[in-house]
């Protein structure tokens, strides 16, 4: 058995957040704002209160009454000013879901419409050619530079400038957000489908004004997260309804709401210019406008992180980047597997690919000549650690030559190069307990589907303790009982929690060694039903090594923690906003083979290879699944996925009918090629691979289309219509 959760999932026995119930539970529905920007003059909940089955109907006034202790500076859960269409302005709890929904439709609101900021084009049509208006709705401004940028461009013998546009994409977990909330005395509880129980405690606690000891969050099994479940979303509403009704309240988003309220990657506009002298890339300038929707000022996390990807992983003598996070009336920007990195890499790597072709140089060789290797400095001045990009590019070039020989004429081949970092800075802890029968890993994360918890953490315990997987169990706690962990995101689970397992295992084997009277740590093993420990030729069943207290109360306990440290950027290069240092350097080099229908514009991906800088592969099947999943998801970003908002701020495709994720029929055979030997921040030098495999996909596909047709696309996704139009315009 590769994964302990597989049988229950295959047989449909796993209970996800949407499957959970609680005795006496009420059902909740949200009341959506009918405009994208407006001020609520009056909210009439009485028609809903009079509707059959309704137990509680709450809006901003009820929220204030339910949270008397909350500080005045807190952001209200139910807004006075609506910031995006369908933003919940009230919520209903009723005895059935149908009654809750019917009552939600009965709520009457008097709303004064306010001017709408629809998109980047209408809000900032002139930037960067024109200056920024004084009243521009800006959430964040980032700017960094180094070296003689103007001089390098003046001395260049070749300059290329490109402009790109990218689209908003949704995470599309099969399970929508779902939770059940209830109140026990002073303590508010919520059971929720989340990537981060402790993150929900923090977010919801802040919104509700509850200290950590008064809010307990328990994770359920998660039917997919992809970044969409890292922060609180449905929990505050359910908790307020539970407080208002005095009963447990279940709130699950409908699939439509999952699209409408999702906080995900929003559209961006990118401008890149590169200077080349004597065949060498010397300088690059970048401008970025990022739609951050209804994000609140000061909450931007994406702009400074994303903009660095536009420089590419290349040695540069000089650079300048400047970007703005722009406020519009869409839902707030949120995480989506490597937020914005696939889009930025599409732009940066497409630009680099085109630049090489301008110079008459093989695009892979051009990247190879400029790409970082250990000891180089990033544009922001951080020293680069072990980085597999050069080796992966060599591999890709050989593979490309092989494919070129074997595939039919007209096939386009494209390479994409992306990079990422294992997010081990967000810390985590685990507690191991050893009994005569088994090892238990106590930790706070539920499996979100990737296997990083049920397989990754168990694999680490297997490797560090020498026990077989069937003697290792995971025990999940809630935020009151489990050791702290930041969450299953940022490609960090194995990197951070895996190291914590390793640290706790180290303590455990050292203690067992001492108890055996040996000089060094013990090894564990199994004989019959019994676990034993051995060191220095001494050997004993675990039962005999435990104290009576340990035998009666949960075994021998050891805690492990991991808080990773990043390198440092050079603060002198940062002129505005926040930029971030990396914990390690993870390269992903992909090769795509496509066929392009020149009349209809249809792009068919025939074959795909993903070379993944892995540091060290801890569990090959899980590694492979992560890379395949990343490629599949990236193909959606590349070819079909696009959130479409109307001029009134309405999402026009809130469902799987017109928001097109790839099906198995569009996903080609994927060759997954691990590259080891360039160690990263995880255990045994492993690098996180949750996010990296999605990053180079749009770039690889677009570069392949350019190879097949001679025409480059500057806008994602590469729908047939966009491709056909570009081919016609040639």
């Amino acid at each position, binding site marked *: 058995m590769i994964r302990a959760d597989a049988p229950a999932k295959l047989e449909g026995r796993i209970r996800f957040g949407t499957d959970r119930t609680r005795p006496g539970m009420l059902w909740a529905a949200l009341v959506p704002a009918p405009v994208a920007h407006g001020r609520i003059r009056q909210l009439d909940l009485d028609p809903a209160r009079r509707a059959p089955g309704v137990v509680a109907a709450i809006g901003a006034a009820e929220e204030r009454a339910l949270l008397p202790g909350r500080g005045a500076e807190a952001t209200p859960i139910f807004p006075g000013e609506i910031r995006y269409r369908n933003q919940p302005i009230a919520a209903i709890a009723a005895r059935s879901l*149908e*009654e809750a929904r*019917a009552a939600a439709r009965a709520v009457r609101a008097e709303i004064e419409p306010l001017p709408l900021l629809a998109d980047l084009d209408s809000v900032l049509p002139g930037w960067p050619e024109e200056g920024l208006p004084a009243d521009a709705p800006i959430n964040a401004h980032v700017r960094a530079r180094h070296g003689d940028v103007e001089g390098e461009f003046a001395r260049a013998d070749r300059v290329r400038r490109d402009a790109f546009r990218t689209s908003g994409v949704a995470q599309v977990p099969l399970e929508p957000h779902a939770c059940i909330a209830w109140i026990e005395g002073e303590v508010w509880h919520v059971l929720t489908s989340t990537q981060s129980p402790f993150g929900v405690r923090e977010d919801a606690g802040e919104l509700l004004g509850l200290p950590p000891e008064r809010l307990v969050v328990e994770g359920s099994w998660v039917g997919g997260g992809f970044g969409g479940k890292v922060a609180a979303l449905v929990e505050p509403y359910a908790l307020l309804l539970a407080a208002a009704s005095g009963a447990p309240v279940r709130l699950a988003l409908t699939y439509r709401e999952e699209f409408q309220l999702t906080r995900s990657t929003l559209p961006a506009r990118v401008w890149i210019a590169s200077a080349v002298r004597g065949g060498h890339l010397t300088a690059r300038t970048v401008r970025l406008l990022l739609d951050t929707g209804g994000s609140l000022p000061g909450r931007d996390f994406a702009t400074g992180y994303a903009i660095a990807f536009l420089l590419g992983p290349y040695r540069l003598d000089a650079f300048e980047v400047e970007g703005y996070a722009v406020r519009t009336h869409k839902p707030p920007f949120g995480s989506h597997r490597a937020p914005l990195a696939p889009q930025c890499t599409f732009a940066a790597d497409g630009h680099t690919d085109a630049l090489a072709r301008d110079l008459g140089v093989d695009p892979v060789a051009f990247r190879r000549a400029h790409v970082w290797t250990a000891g180089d400095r990033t544009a922001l001045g951080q020293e680069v650690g072990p980085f597999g990009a050069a080796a992966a590019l060599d591999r890709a070039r050989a593979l490309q030559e092989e494919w070129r020989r074997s595939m039919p004429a007209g096939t386009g081949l494209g390479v994409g190069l992306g990079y990422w970092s294992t997010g081990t800075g967000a810390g985590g802890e685990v507690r191991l307990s050893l009994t005569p029968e088994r090892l238990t890993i106590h930790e706070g994360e539920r499996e979100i589907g990737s296997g990083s918890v049920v397989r990754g953490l168990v694999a680490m315990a297997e490797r560090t303790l020498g026990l077989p997987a069937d003697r290792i169990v995971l025990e999940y706690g809630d935020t009151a009982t489990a050791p702290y962990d930041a969450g299953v995101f940022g490609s960090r689970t194995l990197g951070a929690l895996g190291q914590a397992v390793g640290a706790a295992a180290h303590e455990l084997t050292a203690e067992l060694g001492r108890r055996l009277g040996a000089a060094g740590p013990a090894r564990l093993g199994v004989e019959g039903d019994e676990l034993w420990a051995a060191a220095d030729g001494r050997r004993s069943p675990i039962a005999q090594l435990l104290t009576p207290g340990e035998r009666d109360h949960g075994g021998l306990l050891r805690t492990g923690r991991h808080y990773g440290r990043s390198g440092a950027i050079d603060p002198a290069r940062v002129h505005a906003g926040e930029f971030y240092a990396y914990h390690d350097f993870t390269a992903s080099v992909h090769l795509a083979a496509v066929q392009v229908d020149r*009349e*209809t*514009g*249809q792009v*068919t991906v025939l074959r795909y290879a993903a070379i993944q800088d892995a540091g060290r592969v801890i569990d090959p099947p899980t590694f492979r699944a992560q890379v395949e999943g990343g490629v599949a998801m990236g193909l959606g970003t590349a*070819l*079909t996925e696009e959130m*479409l908002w109307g001029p009134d701020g309405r999402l*026009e*495709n809130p469902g799987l*009918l*017109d928001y*097109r994720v*790839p*099906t*198995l*029929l*569009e996903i080609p055979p994927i060759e997954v090629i691990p590259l080891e030997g360039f160690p990263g921040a995880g255990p045994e030098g492993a690098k996180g691979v949750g996010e990296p495999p999605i990053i180079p996909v749009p770039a690889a596909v677009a570069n392949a289309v350019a190879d097949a047709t001679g025409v480059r696309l500057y806008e994602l996704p590469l*729908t*047939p*219509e966009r491709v*056909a*139009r570009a081919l*016609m315009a040639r």
Partner: protein
Amino acid sequence: MGFELVAPRSPEEAFRLLEEGAGAASVLAGGTDLLFDLDRVTTAPRRVVSLRHLPWRGHAWQGDTLVVGSTEPLYELERDGSVAARLPGLHTAIRAVGSRALRHRATLGGNLARAAPASDLLPILLALDATVEIAGPAGTRRMELDRFLLASRTTALRPPELIRSVTVPAAPSVYLWQRVRPANDISQVGVAIAHPGPAVYRIAVGGIVPRPRRLPGAEAGLLSDPPPGPERVRAAEEAAREAPFPSDRRATEEHRRRVVRALVERGLVHLAGGAA
């Protein structure tokens, strides 16, 4: 809220149940389209009449004509090799509908009665000159599909009438479509061409307004067998000119026009024995 689900065993019972629920009854014949409306509450019937127990399932050849019961799931036609061999265009169109799981549920009668403008089945059935057998309390009547389809989502059915069967004469035929995502998506356009006899070509297009229809102007220029290149190009251009294309969130008018032109020419090449 909520509705009564009934599954009559005879047509007479079905007519009675529909008449009783006049104005507030919906017909369920697979449900792959109706369920969207129920979910979004764009339709809120008090009664849903399922046709699953009516004795209208099945399909059979009568000479060179395929007769399909209206409640026959599309998958039954998909897996019948004789349909693929004798009505290749219809077979391709059926395989273009949704996913395989959906085709186990979706029925031919349901697809026709819902008359969706982007239906993949309507263009090929128009090109093949299909006829519809309509059953009602007063007996049955037959109608050419072209007359049956009045407008987008509007047919000649007069409640409580139901489609009983669809008759499709065998002919060399081809169906080509274009989508953003090849599998399980809604076609931006669909081009169907039937070639029932020497120098006879019937061309129908879907994804146009108000509903799929034949393009007599394009057909009229096809005088040779097989039509030589310039004749094919003229027919393709005429089709792209003749059909009234909409612009919507799935495609612009310009893209639909461009694709129809390409697909008509490819379809004619295919019927002449070349690769489509």
